[in-house]
């Protein structure tokens, strides 16, 4: 993290999706390496049983990987929710997790920042790596992990505090800023990044619970941004919102992906197609298929994937 105190990152980088742009984004320090140029080369995403990373086509991964799941399985008590998931999540891209209810996509998402730790009687095998280190490793401080991996929930959950305090609270408790002026700047910056500043700048001391549903959800995004995460997990962030508010969230995701690695769980196929660069299809606790979003949606390799995205089941 270049500047942990404000979370500010370059706001207008060259569009990395332009095939001719030769690696405009140098990989941030600390991310899993092996990456450099070759933006134009197709991204290989490992799908498979064990051993995940790099087991796909064998070509070197052209992008830094933020998250790698390696044969990750998960149980709630005796019920197995995930079966040997191996998935590489490229940094600074949007990866959508789709699949019918109960397929394990939310469980996978909540395993990354270890929210499932709160549920008694769960266990896992395999690994999920963040920057090459297992999120479950004993050296890993779970509080640090959650600071680096922000989360936005299905139901917007602003704290029963003022708008200002909602954004400031995490940063203050985590000791990210020391002066009032720095905090003001951090709050403004985070709200701007969440495209909410103009709507709330005159009512910062008012309760966050007076905001509309869409505003509350963007406030929750601002709150997550304020602690300077590298990864943002979104669990159906727009499923409770009207189309206009949904559109705003999607535009926001689009803007944030240059600076953050985003994983989004969604039930909305169009949304996955609109916002994501990569799509992973989960079914019955297994990862069926993963690839570039346009490929998954236009030319899926597995019959199950095609059946799901065309609405024949799920």
């Amino acid at each position, binding site marked *: 993290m270049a500047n942990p105190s404000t979370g500010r990152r370059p706001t207008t980088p060259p569009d990395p999706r332009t095939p001719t742009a030769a690696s405009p984004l140098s990989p941030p320090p600390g991310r899993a390496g092996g990456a450099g140029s070759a933006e134009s080369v197709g991204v290989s995403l490992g799908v498979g049983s064990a051993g995940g990373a790099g087991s796909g086509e064998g070509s070197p991964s052209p992008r830094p990987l933020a998250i790698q799941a390696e044969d990750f399985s998960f149980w709630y008590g005796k019920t197995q929710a995930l079966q040997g998931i191996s998935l590489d999540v490229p940094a600074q891209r949007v990866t959508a997790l789709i699949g019918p209810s109960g397929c394990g996509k939310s469980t996978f998402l909540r395993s990354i920042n270890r929210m499932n730790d709160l549920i008694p009687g769960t266990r896992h095998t395999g690994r999920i790596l963040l920057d090459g280190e297992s999120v479950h490793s004993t050296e890993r401080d779970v*509080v640090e992990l*959650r600071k680096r991996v922000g989360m936005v*929930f299905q139901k917007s959950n602003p704290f029963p*505090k*003022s708008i200002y305090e909602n954004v400031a609270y995490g940063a203050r408790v985590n000791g990210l800023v020391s002066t009032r002026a720095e905090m003001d700047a951090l709050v403004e910056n985070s709200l701007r990044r969440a495209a909410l500043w103009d709507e709330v700048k005159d009512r910062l001391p008012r309760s966050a619970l007076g905001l509309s549903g869409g505003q509350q959800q963007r406030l929750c995004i601002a709150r997550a941004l304020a602690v300077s995460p590298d990864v943002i997990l979104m669990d159906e962030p727009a499923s409770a919102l009207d189309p206009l508010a949904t559109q705003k969230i999607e535009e926001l995701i689009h803007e944030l992906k240059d600076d953050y690695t985003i994983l989004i769980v969604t039930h909305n196929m169009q949304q996955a197609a609109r916002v994501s660069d990569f799509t992973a299809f989960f079914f019955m606790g297994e990862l069926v298929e993963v690839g570039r979003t346009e490929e998954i949606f236009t030319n899926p390799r597995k019959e199950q994937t095609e059946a799901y995205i065309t609405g024949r089941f799920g």
Partner: protein
Amino acid sequence: MNQVMLGLTGVAAVLVVIPLLLIFQYLLSAGAGAINLDFFTQLPAPVGETGGGMANALLGTLFLVLLAGALGIPLAVGAGVFLAEGGRSPLATAVRFTADVMNGIPSIVVGIFVWAWVVVSMGRFSMLAGGIALAVMLLPMVTRTTEEMVRLVPKELKEGGIALGLTRWRTTLGIVLPAAKSGILTGVLVALARIAGETAPLLFTAFGNPFWEWRLNEPISALPLLIYQYAISPYDEWHRLAWAAALVLIGLVLTVSLVSRFLIRNPYRQS
């Protein structure tokens, strides 16, 4: 059939509030006449003299309730949070069951218990013993309301804190408790109003005191004690004062109830 049920339940509802209305009507007619400035500022007058007031008993009740609150509320809120967060652990189950049993203990038994443990060992009746007795009454009430209120906080709110990198205790203290605070406050006020009117736990503990005396280790007066004492006396003047004291006491309790009702109307909202 719907009409019949509606009628029956409606009649029941009206009958339920009739005792309160009758009590009020009677207290007003019997006690209002004895309420004047002296009542709130003077010590009780000796038998035979007219006038005098209950200032010491009013203040005594205030002190006893504050003392009981200071002793009991932190404990009860802490225990309530533990019950809400500790879920189904054996300890939580045991504490929850015990709190429910405690809630059902007759208040006179609490009085005797505190007399045996505190008054006997201290060798004297005291404000401290009265405060402890009232605190024991308050504990199960506030513990259980706190638990209920903390449980009502949506789990998404807690997850929001945890996901932000807050530790569990930080989340509980900084997010869950503030979200539950209006409910907890209401429970606390209702419990304080309840114990303010308790007589039996004070009979053998605070004991009563006709003078200005505010020391922890001295007996202290309280409105319910004075009401009891005056009501069983043979003097008409004291009977009138007892009615007046009862009116004041019920007025206090009613005020607290109304305040708490107002608080619960605005859950979560601030400024």
